[in-house]
């Protein structure tokens, strides 16, 4: 399946500024990347200090932040200044280069994942930074760099809780990475391409029309079983309930981030929220039709934002409603359940596609 080469965001910026050649490409790419990075940063800024509290409060019948600004929204800058102005306390015996690098790697890996996500159109702009032919494999490669950061943090802190948290994070990411990618492959079997824009484009045809309402062939409707598997594995990859074992507050204090304070702590928090949004973006791209929705194509970006925030809301709902797995249960669910089911899904999907094509 080959697609008409759409003008991507960096090219749009370069043309708008009238910059030709390789210099124009680099400047356009940097500006576009800066804008995309800051949009994601804004999302995490809204999600972390404000939306998360408000949502949890709504689930537990409380009010939460409401003192500063309308709906307590000004808590966001207040929390940012407060957290950044905290003293940085480095624990005794910390393994220095590793201790300092871990909080840089986590948000960077999450941000890098957004490079290949097609975020739809915003007016005349096609908000997608890059569209390489291997995009769909690349996004998983970028997202899984996060595990390295968690091990670095856990090991370097010289704290037993941190070490356990880091180990748990690795065991969990390893166990659920395979089901995640194998389930994602069943999407590639349908789409026949690894290009992210191609995967989204393949989901735009109508599946069925029921009573005048056309249901698009989003892979969540075409293959709901794969959707559920992917959703579960995704929750484990980003470490949200019921899979928040790496930082289980009632068991190992705060896991790998126990000994982190000040800007380092902010960066871990930021990185985790970026990973939630990246998880939502991958889910949106692979199963929920990308940036498509009712209305003209030029507001696709709005639908993309709605979908990733819906995923964020879902993670917070699980946080309020679900108990946590134990580590032994986690390993068994992952290796004995999810792995087998994901391979069964891949083989069945391949056979079904083979019979119908």
């Amino acid at each position, binding site marked *: 399946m080959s697609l008409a080469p759409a003008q*991507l965001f*960096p090219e749009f910026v370069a043309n708008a500024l009238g910059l030709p050649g390789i210099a124009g490409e*680099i400047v356009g790419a*940097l500006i*576009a*990347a800066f804008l995309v*990075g800051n949009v994601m940063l804004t999302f995490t800024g809204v999600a972390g200090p404000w939306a998360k509290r408000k949502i949890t409060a709504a689930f537990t019948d409380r009010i939460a932040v409401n003192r500063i600004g309308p709906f307590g929204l000004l808590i966001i800058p207040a929390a940012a200044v407060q957290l*950044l*102005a*905290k*003293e*940085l*306390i*480095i*624990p005794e015996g910390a393994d220095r280069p590793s201790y300092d690098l871990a*909080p*840089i790697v986590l*948000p*960077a890996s999450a*941000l890098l994942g957004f*490079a290949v996500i097609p975020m739809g159109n915003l007016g005349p702009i096609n908000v997608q*930074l*890059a*569209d*390489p032919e291997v995009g769909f*494999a690349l996004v998983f490669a970028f997202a899984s760099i996060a595990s390295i950061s968690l091990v670095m943090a856990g090991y370097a802190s*010289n*704290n*037993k*809780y941190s*070490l356990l948290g880091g*180990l748990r994070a690795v*065991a969990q990411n390893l*166990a659920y*990475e*395979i089901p995640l990618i*194998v389930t994602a*492959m069943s999407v*590639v*079997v349908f789409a*026949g391409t*690894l290009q992210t824009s191609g995967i989204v484009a393949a989901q735009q045809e109508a599946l069925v029309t029921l009573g005048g309402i056309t249901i698009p062939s989003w892979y969540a409707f075409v293959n709901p079983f794969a959707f559920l598997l992917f959703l579960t594995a995704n929750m484990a990859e980003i470490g949200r309930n019921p899979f928040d074992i790496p930082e289980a507050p009632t068991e190992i*204090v705060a896991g790998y981030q*126990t*000994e982190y304070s*000040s*800007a*380092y702590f*902010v*960066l871990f928090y*930021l990185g985790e929220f970026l990973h939630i949004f990246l998880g939502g973006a991958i889910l949106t791209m692979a199963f929920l039709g990308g940036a498509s929705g009712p209305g003209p194509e030029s507001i696709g970006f709005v639908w993309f934002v709605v979908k990733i925030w819906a995923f964020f809301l879902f993670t917070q709902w699980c946080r309020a409603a679900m108990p946590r797995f134990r580590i*032994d249960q986690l*390993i068994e669910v992952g*290796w004995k359940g999810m*792995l087998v089911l994901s391979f069964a899904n*891949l*083989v069945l999907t391949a056979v079904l*596609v*083979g019979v119908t*094509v």
Partner: protein
Amino acid sequence: MNDWIAIGALAVVGLAIPLGMMAVSALLRPSVPEQGKRTVYESGEVPTGTARIRFNIQYYMVALLFLVFDIETVLLFPWVTIYRPALEQGVPLLDVLWPMLTFVGILAVGLVWAWRNGAVQWTSSPRATARKTERETES
């Protein structure tokens, strides 16, 4: 437009944002060095030893298993990518299907072997098992 320039640009931005936040924080934050607060947290007790400790062997077992299956996913990616285009060009279904089925089948045998040998069963130390049995016999 080169895709990899854009990805590289996002990598630069992705590193600049954390570094920038660290720099801003370094300008804002106080520094009151004191030995007491650098002690690692161990539920308020005086910490015993370092964190370079022996831990459950199971973490190695799942890492070993992961290596096998991760390489499998890497080798399956080309197959899933050409699967549909190959069918659309008229290659018979079984010809495209059997390499994957054989490959996944061999790995499934491997998983069954690991499963039967307890590699995916969380091991608990003999001491923990003994304590659990004691508790059960007491009650």
